[in-house]
């Protein structure tokens, strides 16, 4: 303990001793994490003083915290001093349109099947592409602007709408919430910001593709979505990452705030980061904090996630149901194959009266994969007549994988009702044979059964995403049976 305090003091002192020295011209922060790193990032982004202070406070708190040990996952110790916390793609000037984007970058997107040119044409989808921490292109801005919607990179929001950022940043996930959230708060690079004013229904689905590219670059995205009274927004987050040999840490924070009455936020994710090779080497560590707050009456927050990638997934998109009659939803498909590990689920915190939440979790395990559902349903004393329904289903492919369920239920009043259903099933050889006898291949059969298993979640996804998700599932489970 005393050693820790000493280190802390040393670090605190160092700031004053060396002051603010940083190479603002550099495109990449030096490896490692000190207060100087944070000053470098903040200066790079020309941030106001209050934000730098916010980051530093988070950093100092982080130093006192320990990495969580309770998730049901195993991995080698992360060396936080061996990570580059900021890197920007070389960019000569401010870009006005996609035509000005580096063709190499566009090519990469095309390979991933998410060509911005295509996306641009797809009416109804605005894309804010994040390439290694810095937004390189933002489309559909005008149309959104006309509707009064603000959708931009987080850095831009800090410059253009500091009052909104200051008001809501950390209001749902405090800087000291947990180890990874604190780390993110200290070093977050960029992300998306979205604000839907009172009574506005966002005219299109908002979509962001994140991507990790430069070697050894940790990604610390920060997303903040605010919906005012009666506003509605549907936000899509899609992620792909290329092959990579060393493990990469990703510790994002997403905050959703349904501020006013009847505000609605729908957040959908398809995550397909590099899961490591067949022996379990490499792959992304995805340690994410996602939380929404239903502050207004009758407000609603809905999380839908399809998690097929990453070596390790640790995330619990949660909803704080503060407003009376507010609604929280969590629909999840998590797939693990080879040596992937996932510990994911949700937290539904019922505070307001007559609040309701629904949890549908579908875990698929193949190869040597380990899949854990971990969920908390908490109904506070004053949250009378509240309801929760949870359903956790696991599907096993093969006999070397595992499925685990850790439901935590705390109900503090007598008028609320909580239901929990769980099932575990296995794709049997007889099912595969039956399908084959009707002319289908093993792959078709597995795809069909898996998609059938996930149907309840897929139908919550926007159309294009549902199709992509089905394809991804097929790819992730290729060769896992027969």
């Amino acid at each position, binding site marked *: 303990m005393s050693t820790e305090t000493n280190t802390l003091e040393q670090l605190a002192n160092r700031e004053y001793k060396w002051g603010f020295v940083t190479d603002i011209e550099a495109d990449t922060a030096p490896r490692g994490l000190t207060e100087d790193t944070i000053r470098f990032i903040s200066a790079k982004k020309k941030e106001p003083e209050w934000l730098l202070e916010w980051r530093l406070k988070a950093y100092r708190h982080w130093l006192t915290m320990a990495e969580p040990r309770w998730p049901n996952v195993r991995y080698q110790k992360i060396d936080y001093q061996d990570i580059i916390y900021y890197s920007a793609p070389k960019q000569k000037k401010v870009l006005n349109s996609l035509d000005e984007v580096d063709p190499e970058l566009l090519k990469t997107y095309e390979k991933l099947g998410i060509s911005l040119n295509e996306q641009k044409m797809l009416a109804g989808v605005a894309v804010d592409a994040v390439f290694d921490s810095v937004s390189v292109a933002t489309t559909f801005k005008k149309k959104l602007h006309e509707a009064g919607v603000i959708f931009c990179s987080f850095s831009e929001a800090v410059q253009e709408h500091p009052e909104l950022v200051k008001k809501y940043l950390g209001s749902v996930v405090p800087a000291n919430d947990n180890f990874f959230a604190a780390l993110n708060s200290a070093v977050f690079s960029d992300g998306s910001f979205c604000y839907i004013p009172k009574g506005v229904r966002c005219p299109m689905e908002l979509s962001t593709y994140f991507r990790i590219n430069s070697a050894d670059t940790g990604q610390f995205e920060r997303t903040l979505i605010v919906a005012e009274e009666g506003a509605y927004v549907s936000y899509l987050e899609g992620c792909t990452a290329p092959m990579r040999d060393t493990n990469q840490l990703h510790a994002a924070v997403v905050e959703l705030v349904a501020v006013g009455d009847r505000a609605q936020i729908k957040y959908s994710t398809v995550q397909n980061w590099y899961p490591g090779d067949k022996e379990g080497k490499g792959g992304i560590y995805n340690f994410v904090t996602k939380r929404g707050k239903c502050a207004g009456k009758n407000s609603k927050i809905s999380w839908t996630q399809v998690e097929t990638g990453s070596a390790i997934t640790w995330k619990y998109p949660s909803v704080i149901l503060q407003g009376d009659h507010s609604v929280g939803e969590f629909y999840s498909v998590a797939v693990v194959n080879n040596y992937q590990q996932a510990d994911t689920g949700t937290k539904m915190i019922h505070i307001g009266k007559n609040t309701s939440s629904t949890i549908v979790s579908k875990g698929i395990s193949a190869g040597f994969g380990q899949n854990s559902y971990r969920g908390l349903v908490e109904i506070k004393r004053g949250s009378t007549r509240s309801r929760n329904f949870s359903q956790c289903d696991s599907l096993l492919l093969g006999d070397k994988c595992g499925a685990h369920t850790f439901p935590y239920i705390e109900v503090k009043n007598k008028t609320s009702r909580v239901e929990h259903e769980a099932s575990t*099933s296995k794709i*049997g*050889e*007889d*099912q595969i*044979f*039956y*399908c*084959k*006898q*009707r*002319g*289908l*291949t093993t792959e*078709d059969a597995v795809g*069909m*059964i898996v*998609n*059938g*298993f*996930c*149907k309840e979640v897929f139908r919550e996804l926007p159309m294009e995403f549902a199709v992509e998700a089905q394809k991804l599932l097929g790819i992730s489970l290729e060769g896992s049976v027969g």
Partner: protein
Amino acid sequence: MLHINNLHARINGNEILSGVNLKVQPGEIHAIMGPNGSGKSTLAQVLAGREAYEVTEGEVLYEGKNLLELDPEERAREGVFLAFQYPVEIPGVSNTYFLKAALNSIRKHNGLEELDAVEFLKLIKQRMKIVDMDESLLSRPVNEGFSGGEKKRNEIFHMAVLEPKLAILDETDSGLDIDALRIVADGVNKLRRKDNAVIVVTHYQRLLNYIVPDFVHVLMEGRIVKSGTKELALELEEKGYDWIKVASDSTLATA
């Protein structure tokens, strides 16, 4: 069409089929009867390509092709259909969706255009009538929560949609009441054509009152010990299987 020659097969080291010979021509209906454990279902499964069974000897020619070299799905696409004794439940996959995928994989294999949703619905509406299929069973997951009779009926419905050249019905009559039996048998008869053939595997003669076979074979201890016409089935009904066993034992002894 089908030529089984000295077929031997085993599972977990136990030989179940010990030299089956059988010839089936287009347009024919063959019944394979025999006591429990005689290898009837094994024969059906081996023909369909179940991997748990190991063929140790013999060959099976189907339309001149070596059937045993084909994967189960290839056999299906070539027109071999097995109506399962115990139809398998596939949760989450609707009967319609499943059949459409199956039919289109077969059509694609045969160089035909895949049917779109509208054409397919038209087809199944028409084929449902053949087995008097309840429409509600179409949108439900394959066999999930179906009664025993519904499952068997669904198998023949699959057959009606997929139109196989060679259909093997494995104990399709078990678990059916007399009305359902008649409907299912009627369905099979309606599907009968000059260019397709049916092998009916059954315990009891009952089914053969409705699906009248051209040939009846008795399978015992892994081989066909007696063949005849439909009258043989009646004889079996009356006398049981023991008299054949005695007779065949003596034949073997003299051989």
